[in-house]
């Protein structure tokens, strides 16, 4: 009899992916625009120029429209860990719950308290207190990103915890390891900065539209200057932190890295396929050297990107699945057998405890500890280990499109900043149109970043510890299917409403 209800697992995944991707449509703009607004209001307070107040208020209105729907999609995510991933909630809740609670106490209240002052306090509080409130909203939004990304990073690189056999779960042993892990710091900066970049493009694109319509020239140019400087600085930091992400991935999630690079056979001096088209129907059991229909390679680059050493060995999908003795890589089959030993020794331990058999307790405990790093693989002991390979084309293409668009954004920031400073931008209609049409591209790049991060780590909910098949809630898959469609309809309806409201407000322009 089939042990796993795949329909349930897949619908649960689909529902989480749906909510996460909808949520991520709105969050990056909140993260970045909150700072851009705060910068603009700072200029207003510093210069006393009412034009800056007008500019600030316009972008603030758009911020409010976007913020509301971000909140709406966010609440589901938090509770879905319980509703759809109940095993997960128990198995690692001791570690994972803390950042969520801290996010609420530290960040959400800050955001929600001062957002009221920001919107309703213009004539009621002093200029300085209002500015402080605007900054506190920005800080609150970014702090909330910090905690949820710490939590996400921990799933990608679990650390600071130990399995407790008596409670049958992982327990936190070092909080600082959890929040200070290299993956957490990098993930936070890369993700938040990408949000800044998106917000900068949003502001530039809309300002470009005003210039194209010959409206609000001063407003548009001032907005472009603030946003393009902010965007340029952010995008350079995005490259820097993206580089860090790749290295972390190579080190802690080699399968995700290999999938992202379509690397089947590991090698030293591995080249990077800057551009490539994949062959269809590849599986790890059929690893030919020729994995691409077409590619443009940069020699040694992949080795360098992964380990800062052009000679370094980068393992491929085949090496990870089949094992590679020379490079000390255990095969997935071996790991799943060891994982089975761990899981069985947990059962033995519990039975020995019940029976009061001390020697068996010690024996199962030592077996358990020795093999624990393979725990999650145990769930694949009687399964096809190829299930442990993520979707290669999706991660490969997503990564390349994201990076490619990233370079386009940087170029746009530079060009538009120079043109605006030279006071020529309104004449360059091509640049203005490009800026406008770059808005959707920024959203695509941003979503693809999450696709790389999340599709690439499948099937692990927690890397090497808990796969999706052992993390879900035991509910009818038809229930999850139904809620999936309910959310789909609600979110899509709200998104359309949001876009309509947003475009109407933009067309109205800043108030006089």
């Amino acid at each position, binding site marked *: 009899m089939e042990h796993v209800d795949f329909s349930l697992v897949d619908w649960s995944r689909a529902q989480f992916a749906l909510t996460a991707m909808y949520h991520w449509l709105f969050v990056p703009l909140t993260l970045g625009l909150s700072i851009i607004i705060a910068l603009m209001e700072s200029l207003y307070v510093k210069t006393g120029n009412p034009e800056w107040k007008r500019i600030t208020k316009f972008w603030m209105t758009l911020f409010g429209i976007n913020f509301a729907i971000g909140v709406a999609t966010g609440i589901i995510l938090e509770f879905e860990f319980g509703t759809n991933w109940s095993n997960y909630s128990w198995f690692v809740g001791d570690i994972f719950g803390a950042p969520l609670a801290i996010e609420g106490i530290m960040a959400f209240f800050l955001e929600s308290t001062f957002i009221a002052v920001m919107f309703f306090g213009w004539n009621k509080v002093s200029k300085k207190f209002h500015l402080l409130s605007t900054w506190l909203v920005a800080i609150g939004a970014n702090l909330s990103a910090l905690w949820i990304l710490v939590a996400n990073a921990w799933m990608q690189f679990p650390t600071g915890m130990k399995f407790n056999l008596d409670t049958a779960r992982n327990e936190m042993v070092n909080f600082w390891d959890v929040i200070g892990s290299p993956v957490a710091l990098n993930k936070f900066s890369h993700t938040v900065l990408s949000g800044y970049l998106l917000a900068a493009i949003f502001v530039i694109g809309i300002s470009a539209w005003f210039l194209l319509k010959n409206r609000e020239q001063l407003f548009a140019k001032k907005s472009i200057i603030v946003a393009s400087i902010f965007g340029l600085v952010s995008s350079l930091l995005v490259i820097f932190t993206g580089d860090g992400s790749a290295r972390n991935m190579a080190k802690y999630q080699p399968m995700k890295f290999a999938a992202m690079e379509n690397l089947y056979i590991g090698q030293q001096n591995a080249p990077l396929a800057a551009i490539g088209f994949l062959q269809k129907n590849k599986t790890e059991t059929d690893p030919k050297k020729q994995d691409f229909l077409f590619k443009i390679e940069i020699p040694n680059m992949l080795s360098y990107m992964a380990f800062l050493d052009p000679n370094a060995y980068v393992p491929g999908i085949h090496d990870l699945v089949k094992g590679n003795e020379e490079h000390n890589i255990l095969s997935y089959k071996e790991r799943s057998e060891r994982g089975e030993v761990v899981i069985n020794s947990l059962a033995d331990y*519990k039975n020995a405890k019940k029976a009061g058999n001390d020697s068996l307790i010690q024996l199962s405990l030592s077996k358990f500890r020795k093999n624990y790093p393979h725990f999650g693989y145990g769930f694949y002991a009687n399964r096809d280990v190829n299930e442990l390979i993520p979707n290669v084309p999706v991660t490969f293409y997503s990564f390349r499109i994201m990076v490619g668009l990233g370079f386009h954004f940087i170029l746009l920031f530079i060009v538009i900043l120079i043109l605006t400073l030279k006071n020529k931008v309104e004449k360059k209609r091509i640049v203005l149109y490009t800026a406008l049409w770059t808005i959707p591209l920024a959203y695509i790049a941003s979503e693809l970043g999450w696709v790389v991060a999340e599709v690439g780590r499948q099937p692990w909910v927690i890397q090497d510890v808990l796969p999706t098949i052992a993390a879900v809630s035991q509910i009818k898959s038809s229930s999850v299917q139904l809620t999936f469609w309910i959310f789909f309809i609600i979110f899509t309806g709200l998104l359309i409403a949001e876009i309509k*409201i947003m475009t109407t407000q933009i067309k109205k322009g800043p108030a006089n």
Partner: protein
Amino acid sequence: MFETLSYITLQQYWWIIISLLGAILVFLMFVQGGQTLIYTLGKSEDERTLLVNLLGRKWEFTFTTLVTFGGAFFASFPLFYSTSFGGAYWVWLLILIAFVVQAVSYEYRKKPNNLFGKKTFEILLFINGLLGTVLIGTAVATFFTGSEFLIDKMNITKLTGGKMPIISEWTGPANGLEAALNFQNISLGIAVFFLSRVLALLYFMNRIKNTEIMERVKKQLIYNAIPFVVFFLIFTIWLILSPGFAVNPISKVVFIEPYKYLHNLLSMPIVSILFLFGILMVLVGIIRPITCFTKCGTKGIWLTGIGTILTVFSLLLIAGFNNTAYYPSTFDLQSSLTIENSSSSQYTLTVMSYVSLLVPFVIAYIWYAWRSIDNKKIDIEEINNETHIY
């Protein structure tokens, strides 16, 4: 400083925090109650806008408290999060959906070209007010009446056979919706609904300068206070008389004890005092404005609000303290959750306890920010002069 506390003390400390958060949440649900009164109290467009905007400046606090309540419950009692959310799936999902639609409704209601029209967003606010309060009240009542679920942590070691390696399983027929068919549960749900409306009315009295609306508020206060008191009494009397889910402190075996919740009240005199004092404050806060409306109406929200916090706080302490299973399973008594068997590790509770020290600071800045923008009563004219209105 928290390192020196024993495990059980930390577990109790966290149950106190969760209870307090839950209590504050019920108080703040005056926003939900108010959302169900927009058309009852507001007869013209301007009046309705005034009401919506007064609620709109507070909705995020209720929302944020709900989210924080969830996060804190997850961090401190993960087995509850895992069992209840994953099991009573439909109840929690309906509550969530009710809050999803609320989050956009204020901001989008009056915005031009909002696709669905103003009325739709007002209906969504009503749905949030109705479902949010009734279902949360119903869900909390299951802390006393129990649910049908089974927990076996050893399921995680099941690698073969027909079962998935999942530790908790809901055996109730409708994934939580069955709770709404239980009269005790639903009576608390209805009590919470009417309480939230009463609190909203008292909030409006405190904030609005408009004689026509105030006349309607006064009438509504009586209409809503009566069903609240009736349903709350039904629930409370039933609670005091009913058997409860006790835990043997030595063997940790869960068993049914007659008059358990009455025993809890009697053996925890401070909780009893809080409970009775809370109920008294709730009632005085309601009755005073009815009897001397113009003079003493504005303070009612504080009396009834703090009374609500005290009452709900002590109810949740009765559910979890004094060797009681706070989330009982009627399907398998030994699967019931207690604050001891469902909590996080001592280390995590210690870390989280340090984080809890931020709470007074958070309350202080919320207070300060509220005062700075809400320093006097509001009328229609003032709302219409605002640059940002809902």
